[in-house]
């Protein structure tokens, strides 16, 4: 039994890194053909993703490393897990089965029965889930989403609308879908939707990067639901509405930052490994990269620890996401140039990393949305640059 949380996290990091290395050889193949992503369950991180991130009361088979048990439900454990998984391959990491974003929402808003069913299904067999919020006309501004929950002829709930850019939409067995029950932000709710229901249709949207995650557009046409599918029924309209679940998402943001750190590190280490005898200037650039990666990792882990201490501490996660996305983009774009002209053609993995990094501009809130959140926290006084971070 390890005593400090640092030792536990170091153990987790070490083991996940070892497993994540096994993913790397598949990265380019799945990038070319995203449909291959569902055939990787023999890889430890993919198989494990299917059954971690499930809270203790619902998971009797958590991850165990040298006798230490990890549920990967806290922000710090998630950050460590996600950094290493993304270092292995971001695309395959995002394409993994498991609770993922949908799970965090179910954990926060789900009833006991919903949790039992959701987590039970996940543990029964590897299951892909999704989180369908973005729409063709609304991305950064979910308050104006247009999909609707309405009363159906049979007295149930009818779901209509269109969603876009939903990760794993084509392969998901179920997921959280957001729609409105009436006008205004308090009337936006989420339901757990089974993708085999009549009226659900998903089609892939080919992307430049993280192609393995196979983003999809979803059409919902008179999908028949009942009250038992609705999340947050026992909660106030504030907590189950836009305000409530955007707080929930704050908890996830450090993990997105951690993924960006993992990707930057993968590109940096690739250069170190393959660039024989770098010039003095290149060596200096690599050293600066290493320092920057380290600094952003510190920031990200502090943000994760802050969220673990108090869920209201989400603003630091926006700071971390802002810096980490920038880091991933700049490191991955600089990396091919270490190999001279034709670096991207000779090193397709680096070309892929540069494409993948762009995802961080948008995933889990665009960079401008983070900027506005950080500036808001600063002007409200919740962010004090003179105080210790975290």
């Amino acid at each position, binding site marked *: 039994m390890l005593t400090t949380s640092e030792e536990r996290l170091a153990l987790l990091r070490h083991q996940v890194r070892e497993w994540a290395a096994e993913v790397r050889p598949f990265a380019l193949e799945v990038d070319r053909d995203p449909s291959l992503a569902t055939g990787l369950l023999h890889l430890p991180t993919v198989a494990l993703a299917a059954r971690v991130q499930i809270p203790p009361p619902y998971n009797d088979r958590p991850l165990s490393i040298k006798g230490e048990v990890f549920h990967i439900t806290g922000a710090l454990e998630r950050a460590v897990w996600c950094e290493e998984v993304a270092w292995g391959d971001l695309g395959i990491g995002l394409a993994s089965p498991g609770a993922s974003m949908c799970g965090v929402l179910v954990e926060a808003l789900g009833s006991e029965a919903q949790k039992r069913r959701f987590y039970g299904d996940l543990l029964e067999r590897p299951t892909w889930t999704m989180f369908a919020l973005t729409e063709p006309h609304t991305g950064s501004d979910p308050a104006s989403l247009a999909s609707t929950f309405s009363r159906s002829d049979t007295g149930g709930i009818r779901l209509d609308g269109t969603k876009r850019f939903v990760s794993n939409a084509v392969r998901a067995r179920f997921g959280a879908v957001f729609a409105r029950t009436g006008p205004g932000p308090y009337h936006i709710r989420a339901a757990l939707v089974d993708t085999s229901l009549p009226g659900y249709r998903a089609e892939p949207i080919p992307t*430049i990067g993280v192609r393995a995650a196979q983003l999809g557009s979803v059409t919902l046409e008179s999908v028949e639901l009942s009250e038992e599918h609705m999340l947050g029924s026992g909660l106030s309209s504030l907590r189950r509405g836009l305000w409530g679940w955007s707080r929930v998402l704050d908890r996830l943001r450090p993990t997105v930052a951690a993924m960006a750190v993992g990707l930057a590190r993968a590109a940096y280490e690739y250069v170190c490994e393959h660039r024989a005898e770098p010039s003095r200037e290149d060596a200096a*650039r690599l050293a600066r990269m290493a320092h920057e990666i380290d600094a952003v990792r510190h920031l990200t882990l502090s943000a994760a620890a802050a969220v673990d201490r108090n869920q209201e501490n989400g603003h630091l996660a926006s700071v971390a996401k802002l810096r980490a996305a920038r880091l991933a983009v700049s490191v991955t774009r600089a990396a091919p140039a270490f190999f001279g002209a*034709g670096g*991207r053609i000779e090193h397709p993995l680096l070309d892929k990393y540069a*494409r993948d990094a762009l995802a961080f501009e948008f995933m889990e809130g665009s960079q401008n949305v983070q900027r506005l959140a950080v500036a808001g926290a600063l002007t409200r006084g919740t962010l004090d640059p003179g105080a210790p971070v975290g």
Partner: protein
Amino acid sequence: MTSGERPALTRSVQQAVHDTARREGPTAALSALYEAIGRDTPVRGPGGHALVPEGVRHDAADTAVLPGIDGLGLLPLRGPTAPDAPAREPGPEGGPIGPAAWAEALTWLRLGLSVKILDEALGYLRDRVTGGSPLLTRQLIKGALADAVALQLQVRSVLDAHAPGDVPRPLSAGLNAMVTQADRMLLPLLGASGFTTEGPGRVAHASELLVDTYFTIAQEGTDLC
């Protein structure tokens, strides 16, 4: 013009390549450029690599797979893989225009692509309403647009100030770094629609591949540290 080079492209050809890039994208513009220099074999960069439109004659075994430009009709070609690799097509030195004129032409082409991305970003931001008003009215957005367009105009002013063929290769490399910087400011403004293979993200990616293939100092385009 360096001795031994044929006369460079005329201003009207440079402008036409730019305009084709702006209107139709990288493949049509590169095809127009190959046509203008009267060449049907790959023009190779300093490392022996090339990025060519499908119509250009090439050895299929040279073709690399880069999914980021799938469907564009552009082919990345590898350079010599071993010291004793068989002789390849000569670089632009052997073609009708020299490396400096080729680099200059690519600058016009990539600037045209950058303006294309700007056009698409403006269209997107005008139509996209958040919180009751078009995204184009947001100050953060206007700031990014202004920075990007200022960079584009800076590049254009240098090109305009040089007679065709008078832009030295290192200057072209620097100008291309500025174009890259402008693209990188613009692309995020398109949201995830700039991340789909049908969107302008693929154009920006192809444009970055052009720099990577034909210039050795692409690092200048990065903002790291």
